[in-house]
């Protein structure tokens, strides 16, 4: 008995083998790709990652608790009453404060930057504050929102087209000890900037109370539309 590739049974066998082959190629590639991420990290990086993930997961749990409380109020039939109105107002306040649409107050730190410093160095400082858990940030009287970009050259920087002087302040609301600790740790951003921008002086002071202004930007999109 002879068989040819044209025979249905042969075609089925080849198809099955080709399918398995394809499947294994994909599995192999994916397993290799996933394997070289965490495995290549130093212990220091892993420690940092674990601490970061822990902090982040705690924030997520708090957010879940807030949302569950809102949901419970709505489900209890309060959507027609005063409790719903209060709940809605509180949620609007919470989101607007977080987004930079409303002024906020609280304790935090004030960073005074004096002398010539690169725009990228100021971006790095702001980025470090965000990573350290700053809840709201302003540079002079400009509230930092996602669209805020620091431009210019050392000595004549600007934020959102507003010129910064030779000396300016960055204020951040958050746990002062955590923020200060993150900036001033050995090998941290202040130590790095001392090497890259030696002419600049950076002083950090804890503040028990500060008020950060709202952004003057319109954050409503005009090209993007909400997706269902």
């Amino acid at each position, binding site marked *: 008995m002879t068989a040819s*590739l044209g025979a249905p049974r042969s075609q089925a*066998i080849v198809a099955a*083998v080709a399918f398995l082959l394809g499947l*294994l*190629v994909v599995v*192999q590639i994916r*397993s290799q790709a996933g*394997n070289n991420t*965490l*495995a290549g*990290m*130093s212990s220091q990086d*892993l*420690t940092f990652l674990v601490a*970061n*993930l*822990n*902090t*982040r*997961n705690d*924030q*997520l*749990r*708090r*957010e*879940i608790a*807030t*949302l*569950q409380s809102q*949901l419970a109020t*709505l489900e209890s039939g309060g*959507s027609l009453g005063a409790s*719903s*109105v209060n709940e*809605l*107002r509180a949620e*609007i*306040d*919470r*989101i*607007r*404060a977080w987004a930079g649409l*409303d*002024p*906020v*107050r*609280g304790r935090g730190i004030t960073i005074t930057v004096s002398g010539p410093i690169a725009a990228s160095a100021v971006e790095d400082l702001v*980025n470090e504050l*965000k*990573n350290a858990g700053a*809840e709201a940030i302003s540079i002079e009287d400009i509230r*930092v929102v*996602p669209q805020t970009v620091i431009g210019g050259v050392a000595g004549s920087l600007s934020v959102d087209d507003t010129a910064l002087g030779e000396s300016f302040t960055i204020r951040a609301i*958050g746990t002062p000890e955590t923020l200060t600790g993150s900036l001033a740790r050995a090998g941290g951003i202040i130590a790095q900037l001392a090497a890259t921008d030696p002419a600049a002086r950076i002083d950090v002071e804890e503040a028990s109370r500060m008020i950060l202004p709202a952004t003057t930007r319109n*954050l409503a*999109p*005009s*090209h*993007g539309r*909400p997706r269902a």
Partner: protein
Amino acid sequence: MTTLAGRLRAIPTWQVTLGLALFALGFLIAAQLAAEGPRVRYTTQERSPLVGTALELQQKQVELRAQIVTLGEDIQALQDEGEGTTAIVRQLNDRLEAARIAAGLIPLSGPGLVLSLSDSTQAIPADGSEADYLVTARDIRTVVAELWLASAEAIAVNGERVTTSTGVLDIGHSILVNSAYLAPPYRVSAIGPQDLLDQLGLSQGWREFIQTRAGRFGLEITFAEPEVVAVPQFAGGLNLRESRVVPPESPSP
């Protein structure tokens, strides 16, 4: 010899094809098993317990974020139901929706572009630094800043929405965005005006970035302009432990 060659020629083509495919299959199964073995050993014996902890925490983070998205959707659905009740609730729901959109808590779609950044494949010179040939957090921050300057209005990096609290930092050879661990290639999706790419090209900072990072160090930077760019919502916590809203100033007596 002639007989052997003749026999080989007599083998049907499909059998040769099948034979080759089976050989490749066997090779891949062996490779997969070989790859699994050391990984299991590495996980259980040699790998630091930190890796296991990091993997567990990452998995937990994915679950928590999914829970936040679901809760947000449930809340929105209930609030939408209540929309038709009273004028005040309708008004507040509208304000809430506007605040969520402005804050990046609602997914958006619209015109824009998608940039992709990958590590360089160039050989690193003996006196070169490996970091120069990798996509770094600063590269991502530069791209995001240039997109904002070009009038982008919503940006995500590998599905992580850039919001007011978004920090981007290096960790090992990868990057954390919103504390989510991302690996290359990095896809930066931006919604903005139709001429977003043209605006980007006009920027001196963008041109210098391309010249240095792509031209000199060989980072692979590509772009696409799909008809619709989708940017997901921020699926994280609104960290406001120390902040209090400042009540509007009461009118002077």
